[in-house]
């Protein structure tokens, strides 16, 4: 961490999930899932609750045995990594420390098992800003502090690859902002950062790439702009005018669909913003607002995962 360069031992740090499947009884929790996660970028792993995100991450980390398929980090399975914590840091659930153990001792236990020097525990606590609470017992930690402790544990081995399951859960706005800049910083150093979440607005701010799954299957993968851009057919234009009826009449000739909102604006579907402006000018209609509404990740996500029941 100190020199900002990740250890080279985890290969290039690329995560490759290939044909991954987990069947529980009759439920295919993860169904022939394949995607890749590149180093140097923050990748958002998105899906409705119950889509199979956590199961996928747990298979990637050798905690759950896949029914079939493989998942590798830097070309190797997690179980085959010689010193896994030096390659991969993972934050899975916020409550995974003994209630009556202090934060610093929780980290020292991991250091001992991983063969890492003891002072790494102090260093990572400093890194996540938990030093003042080092000697407090875990049961006295807030949810946000628990998340920070989890991240501290993941950073112990200065890993090339970071995997986080819903890290924003329980964080206050300050904490979310801290997490965002922290993870972006790690990616900027060339590390691989894979973050699962269902908080889409947060993902739009944080992620470079997204992997969207629903009902255990891949729905879409790619850079955020490309995934959002692939849905541009739903660009809408928002307009305010003192002469709404005249504008509606003028636009009717352009095959545009117009909706009136409660606050008196018009939302126009089917034509782009320049067309709306030109139409208004030609008809000598006064405009007070003309805003193209870009679809956001949330809209795209809802559209892509619509109808795929989360509870199976």
């Amino acid at each position, binding site marked *: 961490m100190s020199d900002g360069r990740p250890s080279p031992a985890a290969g290039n740090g690329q995560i490759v999930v290939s044909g991954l499947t987990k069947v529980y009884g009759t439920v295919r929790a993860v169904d022939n899932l394949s995607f890749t996660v590149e180093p140097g970028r923050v990748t958002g792993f998105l899906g409705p609750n119950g889509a199979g995100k956590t199961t996928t991450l747990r298979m990637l980390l050798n905690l*759950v045995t896949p029914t079939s398929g493989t998942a590798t980090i830097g070309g190797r399975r997690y179980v085959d990594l010689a010193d896994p914590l030096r390659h991969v840091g993972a934050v899975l659930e916020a409550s*995974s*420390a003994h209630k009556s153990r202090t934060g610093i001792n929780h980290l020292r236990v991991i250091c001992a098992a991983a063969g890492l020097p003891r002072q790494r525990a102090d260093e990572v606590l400093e890194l996540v800003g938990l030093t003042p609470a080092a000697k407090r017992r875990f049961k006295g930690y807030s949810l946000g502090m628990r998340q920070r402790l989890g991240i501290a544990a993941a950073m112990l081995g200065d890993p090339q690859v970071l995997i986080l399951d819903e890290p924003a859960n329980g964080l206050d706005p300050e904490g979310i902002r801290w997490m965002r800049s922290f993870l972006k910083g790690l990616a900027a150093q060339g590390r691989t950062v894979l973050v699962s979440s269902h908080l889409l607005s947060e993902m739009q701010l944080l992620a470079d790439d997204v992997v969207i799954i629903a009902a255990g299957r891949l729905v879409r993968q790619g850079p955020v702009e490309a995934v959002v851009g692939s849905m541009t057919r739903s660009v809408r234009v928002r307009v305010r005018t003192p002469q709404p009826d005249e504008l509606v009449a003028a636009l009717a000739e352009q095959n545009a669909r117009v909706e009136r909102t409660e606050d008196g604006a018009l939302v126009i579907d089917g034509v782009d913003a320049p067309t709306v402006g030109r139409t208004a000018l030609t008809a000598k209609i006064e405009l007070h607002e003309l805003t193209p509404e870009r679809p956001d990740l949330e809209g795209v996500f809802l559209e892509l995962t619509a109808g795929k029941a989360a509870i199976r």
Partner: protein
Amino acid sequence: MRLVRSELLKIRTTHTWWIFALIALPLWGITLFFNYISSQFLVDPASVGAPEAAQSEELRVAADPLNIASNLYTNGQFLGVMIVMLLGIIVVTNEFFHQTATTTFLTTPHRTAVVLGKLVAAALLGLLFWIVTAALNLAVTPLILSDLGLGNQLDQGAVWQAIALNGLAYLLWAVFGVGFGVLIRSQIGATVTGILLYLAGYIGAGLFLAQLAQRFGDWINNLQLLVPSLASQLMTTGTDLPGNPPRWAGAVVMVGYAVVAGTIGTLIMRRRDIS
């Protein structure tokens, strides 16, 4: 080695071990009191009003100063090994109770190594409990023996044998506890079942086998060996008691149980999904 250090650190950084030590100490005191009374009875049955004729052959052998001494020098075993077994159970079930299993297996994906680390750490903890009880017994027993008009018996190899076998019992019960904890993941389930099996095995099976022995002959008493709590008691008698299996057989049975529990536990742990 790393894993053993990590496991020992886990134990040291929570309250569990010293709470158990605090429980073990008064229990040691209580059993010492009862052993003192029963030793007095064995040395001089008439003093507590038992008729001479009631003495069986087994009692006469038990009254051998050597056996009285062995019993006193290994005082506290009956409840001590149970506490050590509970510690072994907790070393494993804590991981699920506090959801630390995820962190543990992320740090060490090779689960057999994790279980082995826990087995060794629990065994060391068991030995620590044994060392403390043995030291207390070595301090107190000579006083009791001289009160009973017997020498301290420390020049007898059999006494030291009993003390050493007692250490083995502590170690094996700790290992047994770890295996048991892996088998039953629920902390409450595992501890309650463990205590019930231990006590019921001791009292219930003892009575049951004694009944059967009266009907079918003394050889039935050899089946005591199959009951872990009786097998470990057998290990600490000073000499072989008539009508009872030899001491080494108790040790063999206990090693067998510990190995079986540890192996089955490890195999289960290797296959289990951690979620």
